[in-house]
């Protein structure tokens, strides 16, 4: 597939990296030659320097032959114009844009049928806000992801001594919670993937990925660790776009404190928040944290635009007694260093955001893709078509399907009903199938499986 990516920032670079390894033909456009050079040094792709919304630049990038345009420059306006040009001048079949401003996102004239010809808009701040809100709702989880319009959840939990299933083989989970159907799709132990079968013993410290109907997720987690107290008090460091969205999403149900160092921004924030308390100060200031009872916080979230600041403030908060700390960290090497150390959860914004984008690039009828474990693993939701003849999945039982090693069919959603996949579950046309892949490299083979043959009409 020929893909043009506009913007070589965090998101653009992460998308490029994720696509290059899948044998696509990628061209990246940016105004900043230095950023392009950095990309080109690492990956096999073409780059064009210039303004992403200029027709001549787009032409130089090969837009005439492009199957997909991904507009993720810093500027909403550039992204919108690029999509419009791509559709009207160059007939590019699919166009994706990053749009930040609510004024655009909420406006039908901008994103509707007669708007700027954007097939899919993504707002990273919104995606991250949803991600963190889930962590507030499920304080035991490392990550919670939704499939099939929220009917199915995939949850990552660390197993702790004292959880009823810890030290027990996977197959016993049915006896423990007989009324709940769940599947343990993967276990990560000391950074390696263990392919779980019925006899695999769950150890303390394992990172366990379970699929279940969304309503059952809490009971499933309860088998792997003691449940935490529900979250009541949340402190947010950083009143930028994400901090504000997060405070607005949480202030109705939780006690929220928001720390922001810029005084004028604080005024702006308090005008837009009803219950959340806005504090002017530095999140790495021990005295301020002490004053605001950091020790009583159930959750501390650092979402400033500065990695070091987020790391230091959340380390400090943890040491001063905050129950759980979450930090937004852009730099990949930092995320790897810090996750599951003193910082409970390190979120890489780019990784969290690209899932929605990836769904568009996949071959086959893929509805959702989530990037997990810092991009190493993936979970995918695909719609099945055709019949036994035209597709290698349709009309077959799960055990008959030739999945590559490390891939598991976890659940099936049929006519809105969630079925956990067992070895004898038969896949039918129009099913939504959720597949977990421990090694992203096998994803192309999984996609191939779900594609229909040439004779499918």
């Amino acid at each position, binding site marked *: 597939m*020929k893909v043009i990516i506009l913007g070589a920032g965090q998101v653009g670079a992460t998308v490029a990296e994720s696509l290059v390894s899948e044998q696509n033909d990628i061209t990246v456009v940016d105004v900043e030659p230095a950023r392009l050079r950095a990309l080109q040094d690492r990956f096999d792709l073409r780059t064009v320097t210039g303004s992403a919304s200029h027709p001549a630049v787009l032409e130089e990038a090969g837009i*005439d032959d492009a*199957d997909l345009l991904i507009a993720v420059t810093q500027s909403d306006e550039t992204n919108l114009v690029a999509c419009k040009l791509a559709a009207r001048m160059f007939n590019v079949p699919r166009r994706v844009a990053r749009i930040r401003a609510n004024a655009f996102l909420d406006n039908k004239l901008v994103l509707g049928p007669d708007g700027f010809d954007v097939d899919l808009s993504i707002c990273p701040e919104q995606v991250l806000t949803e991600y963190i809100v889930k962590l507030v709702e499920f304080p035991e989880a490392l990550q919670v992801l939704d499939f099939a319009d929220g009917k199915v959840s995939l949850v990552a939990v660390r197993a702790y001594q004292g959880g009823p299933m810890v030290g027990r083989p996977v197959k016993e989970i049915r006896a423990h919670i007989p009324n709940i159907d769940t599947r343990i799709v993967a276990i990560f132990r000391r950074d390696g993937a263990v392919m779980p079968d019925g006899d695999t013993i769950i150890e303390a410290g394992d990172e366990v990925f379970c699929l279940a109907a969304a309503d059952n997720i809490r009971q499933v987690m309860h088998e792997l660790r003691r449940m935490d107290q529900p979250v009541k008090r949340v402190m947010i460091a950083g009143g930028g776009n994400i901090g504000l969205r997060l405070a607005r999403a949480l202030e109705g149900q939780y006690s929220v404190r928001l720390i922001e160092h810029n005084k004028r921004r604080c005024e702006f924030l308090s005008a837009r928040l009803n219950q959340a308390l806005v504090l002017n100060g530095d999140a790495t200031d021990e005295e301020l944290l002490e004053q605001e009872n950091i020790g009583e916080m159930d959750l501390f979230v650092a979402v400033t635009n500065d990695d070091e600041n987020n790391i230091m403030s959340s380390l400090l908060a943890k040491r001063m007694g905050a129950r759980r700390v979450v930090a937004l960290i852009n730099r990949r090497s930092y995320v790897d260093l810090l996750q599951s150390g003193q910082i409970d959860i390190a979120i890489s914004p780019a990784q969290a955001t690209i899932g929605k984008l990836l769904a568009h690039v996949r*071959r086959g009828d893929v509805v959702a893709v989530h990037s997990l474990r810092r991009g190493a693993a993936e979970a995918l939701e695909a719609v099945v*078509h055709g019949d036994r003849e035209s597709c290698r999945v349709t009309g077959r039982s799960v055990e008959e399907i030739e999945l590559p090693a490390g891939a598991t069919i976890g659940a099936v959603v049929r006519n809105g009903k969630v079925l956990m996949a067992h070895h004898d579950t038969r896949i039918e046309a129009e099913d939504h199938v959720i597949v977990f892949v421990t090694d992203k490299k096998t994803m192309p083979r999984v996609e191939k499986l779900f594609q229909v043959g*040439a*004779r*499918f*009409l």
Partner: protein
Amino acid sequence: MSLVAKLLPPANVLLDLQVSSKKRLFEQVGLLFENNHGIGRSLVFDSLFARERLGSTGLGQGVAIPHGRIKGLKDALGAFVRLAQPVPFDAPDAKPVNLLFVLLVPEQATEKHLQILSELAQMFSDRALRDALATAADAEALHQRIVAWQPDAAGQRQAVA
């Protein structure tokens, strides 16, 4: 007469088309159906792309049979395109494609349309025919070859070859 022969008017054969990608190819095919049959080019383009997304219509050996449903179309329609340079098509054998039979069918596709597709697959599995199509000197000769082809009749096929 084969089913395929009935839906391919001589004017729907394009020889040695210069395109650089699948996208450009579908644009040209859209143009052909718009000019010859009054079907909106973007309708054709979108329909072919949507189908391709579910899985490539490449058969291997440089051949593909892109197809799509068209709202309001009464009878199935075909077009044959030979490309000057092959383009990537994500085919099962990973080879680029230079011979294409494009098929448009009504929105309510029937058993007959499936038969057409399987006839096409059978036709292009015939190596002698593929070679003949790849080397035919002009559109008329190429059209003749396709029209003369008979399904499941090895003897006749050889007689023509």
